C-alpha cells in the first residue's frame, strides 16, 4: 500500500469539516451555553461564575419564561418568519415551476437573475428598500395614489406609513430570502418526470388537478427544504428589523443584540440565543426525519 492509499487520508478528508464545525460552531456554542448560566457583573467581561455551589445561575432562564418581553419577541419572530416563509412560498413556487417549463437557454438566464441580487451588498439592497418605502419616493407615492383611488375619500392619506413597521420587515425579508426558496424548489421540481403530468392528463385530469395530484405532492421535500432555509434565518434576523422595523415590535435577534451591547447583560443574551437555537432544532430534525424516510422509500 503506498502513501496515497492510506486510510488516514480518507479520515482526514472526512474529519476536516467536522473539525471546522467543532472549532467554529460547537465550541462557541458551548461558550454561549456556559455564559447563559453565569451571573451578570460590572466587570470585563461582564459576567462571572459563582465561586461556590451551585456555580451555575439559572435566573436568566427563569426571566426568559416569566418576562413578557422575551416571550413576545419570540412570538413576533416566529410569526414574522412564518409570514415570510408563506409569502416566499407563494411567490417562489410559480417562479420555480416556471423555470422548469422554459427552454434550457432561457432557464440559465432566469436562474442567473434569481442569484444576481447576491452580487450587490445586502445592506445596500436594504437601504434601497428604505428609500423606496420612504414617504416621498415614487414607490410610496404610486401605492398611495392607488390606495386613495380604491378607498372612500375620507380614508385618503398623504403617504402610506410603510417604513418602521412590521409590514416593512416582512416585505424586505421576503425580498431577501426569496432565492433561498426558489432554488431548492426548482431543484426538486426539475427532477419530476413530465410524462407523469401527461399520464394524469390522459387519465382525465385537468391541468390544475394534475398540479394538485402529481406536481405538488412530489415537491414536498423541496417545499420543506426551501421553507427551512427561509424560516430559520428569518426567525433570527437582526439587520432588517433594526433598519426598517418598528422598535415596539422587536424581533428576537434585536433582543439578543440589545442585551449584548446596550444592557451588557451577556448571560441574558446567551440564554435567549440558546432558546432560539433550541426552537430551530425542532423543525430541522423534523426535516431530517422526513428526508430519511423519503430516502428509505426509494
Amino acid at each position: 500500500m503506498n502513501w496515497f492509499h492510506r486510510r488516514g487520508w480518507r479520515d482526514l478528508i472526512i474529519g476536516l469539516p467536522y473539525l471546522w464545525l467543532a472549532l467554529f460552531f460547537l465550541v462557541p456554542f458551548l461558550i454561549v451555553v456556559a455564559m447563559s448560566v453565569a451571573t451578570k457583573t460590572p466587570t470585563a467581561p461582564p459576567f462571572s461564575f459563582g465561586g461556590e455551589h451551585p456555580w451555575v445561575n439559572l435566573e436568566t432562564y427563569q426571566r426568559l419564561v416569566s418576562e413578557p418581553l422575551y416571550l413576545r419577541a419570540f412570538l413576533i419572530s416566529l410569526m414574522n418568519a412564518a409570514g415570510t416563509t408563506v409569502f416566499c412560498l407563494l411567490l417562489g413556487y410559480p417562479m420555480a415551476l416556471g423555470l422548469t417549463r422554459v427552454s434550457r437557454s432561457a432557464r440559465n438566464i432566469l436562474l442567473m437573475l434569481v442569484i444576481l441580487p447576491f452580487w450587490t451588498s445586502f445592506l445596500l439592497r436594504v437601504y434601497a428598500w428604505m428609500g423606496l418605502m420612504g414617504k416621498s419616493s415614487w414607490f410610496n407615492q404610486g401605492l398611495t395614489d392607488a390606495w386613495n383611488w380604491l378607498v372612500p375619500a375620507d380614508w385618503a392619506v398623504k403617504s402610506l406609513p410603510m417604513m418602521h413597521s412590521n409590514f416593512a420587515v416582512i416585505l424586505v425579508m421576503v425580498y431577501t430570502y426569496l432565492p433561498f426558496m426558489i432554488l431548492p424548489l426548482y431543484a426538486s421540481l426539475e427532477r419530476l418526470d413530465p410524462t407523469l403530468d401527461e399520464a394524469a392528463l390522459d387519465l382525465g385530469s385537468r391541468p390544475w388537478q394534475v398540479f394538485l395530484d402529481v406536481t405538488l405532492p412530489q415537491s414536498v421535500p423541496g417545499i420543506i427544504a426551501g421553507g427551512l432555509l427561509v424560516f430559520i434565518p428569518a426567525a433570527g434576523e437582526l439587520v432588517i428589523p433594526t433598519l426598517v422595523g418598528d422598535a415596539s415590535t422587536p424581533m428576537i435577534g434585536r433582543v439578543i443584540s440589545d442585551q449584548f451591547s446596550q444592557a451588557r447583560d451577556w448571560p441574558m443574551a446567551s440564554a435567549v440565543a440558546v432558546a432560539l437555537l433550541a426552537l430551530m432544532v425542532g423543525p430541522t430534525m423534523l426535516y431530517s426525519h422526513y428526508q430519511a424516510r423519503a430516502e428509505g422509500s426509494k
Partner: protein
Amino acid sequence: MAEFLQIEGVSKSFGPFQAVRNVSLSVAKGEIFSLLGGSGCGKTTLLRMLAGFEEPSAGRILIEGRDMAGVPPWARPVHMMFQSYALFPHMTVEANIGYGLKHEPLSVAQRKDRVREMLDLVQLTPMATRKPHQISGGQRQRVALARALARQPKLLLLDEPLAALDKKLREHTQFELMEIQERIGVTFVVVTHDQEEAMTLSDRIAVMDKGQVQQVGSPTEIYEYPVNRFVASFIGAITSFEAEVTARAPGTLTLHVPAFGQEVTTREADFAPGAKVTLALRPEKLVISKTRPPGNAVQGVVKDLAYFGKDSLYRITLASGALVQAHAVNQARGVAMVADWDDQVWLSFDPSAAIVLGG
C-alpha cells in the same frame, strides 16, 4: 358506418421538420393495430396526436365519427400506456389504478369494486398497497395497463408496451396482453419498433418510415408480400438482388439476375420486359442441397454457418461474389447438417417464394 378510428391526411411538423406526412389510416373496433417503424419514423408522434398531446398540423382524426380537433387529452375517450409506464411514484398500486376513476360519476364503493376488478384482471391483488418502486418491472407494466383500462376507454394506446421487459417476460406478457384485449374487446393501437412484437400482437400493421405509411396489412401480407424494399428489409431478414425483367408470360415472369449470372422465373408481377426490379429472397424460403434440383437454382460455397439449435443460418457466396443468407431447419437429431464450411451447394427456390419489387 364509418370506421371506429379514422386518420385522414394527418401531418405534423415541428418547425422545419416534418415528423408525420399525410398519413391516412382506419382502424376497426376491437382490432389490435400496430404502428411499426424505426426510431424517428413518426409513429410516436402519431400516437401522441391520438392521445391529444399534439395537435395535427393538417388533417383530421375521428373517433367513432367525432372530430378530435381541439379536444384536450382529458376529454378524449382514449387512454395511453406509456413506455416508461409513468406510474405515480407517491401513490400505491391501488391509488394508481383508481386515479382516473375519480373523474367518473361513481360511488366510493363502485370505485373500489372497479379497482378490485382491475387488480384481479392483471393478477396484482396481493400488491395493491405497495408503491411502484416496491414491485418488479413486469408488475409495473401490468399496473400501467390496469390504470389505462380502469376507465374503460374505447381506444387504448400502447407505446412500446413490452420494450422495458426482458425477453422471457416479453413473450409471456405478449400473450397476456392479447388475452386481456380479447376479453375486454377494447381497440388497441400499439407503437413498436420490434417487428416480432408487432407480428405476434397485431391483427394489422402499418409500417412507417420517414413520417409516411409504407404499407398497411396483416402480418402475413406484410411479411410475404411487401410492397417496397423498405418494408421487405425492415420485416425479417432478406437478401435482395438487382434484376431485369426479360420476359412476361401469363403466370410467370422471367428475370435476369446479374449476381446469379443466369435467369430465374417468378410469379407474374406487373412489370414490362426491360424493367429494372429487385429480387428479394427470404432465408427460410431457400433450399440448400448438394445436387442440382430442377427449377431456379444457383451454385455457391458455404462461407459461414451458425447453429442455433432448432435451425442453422448459412451464408453462401455465389460465383459472382454476392452473399446470400439461407435458413435450414434441423429436423433430425444428431445427423450431420445439410452442408459444412466450404461445401459446394445449390440454392433453389420456388417461383412463388421470390419477391419482385420495383426499383
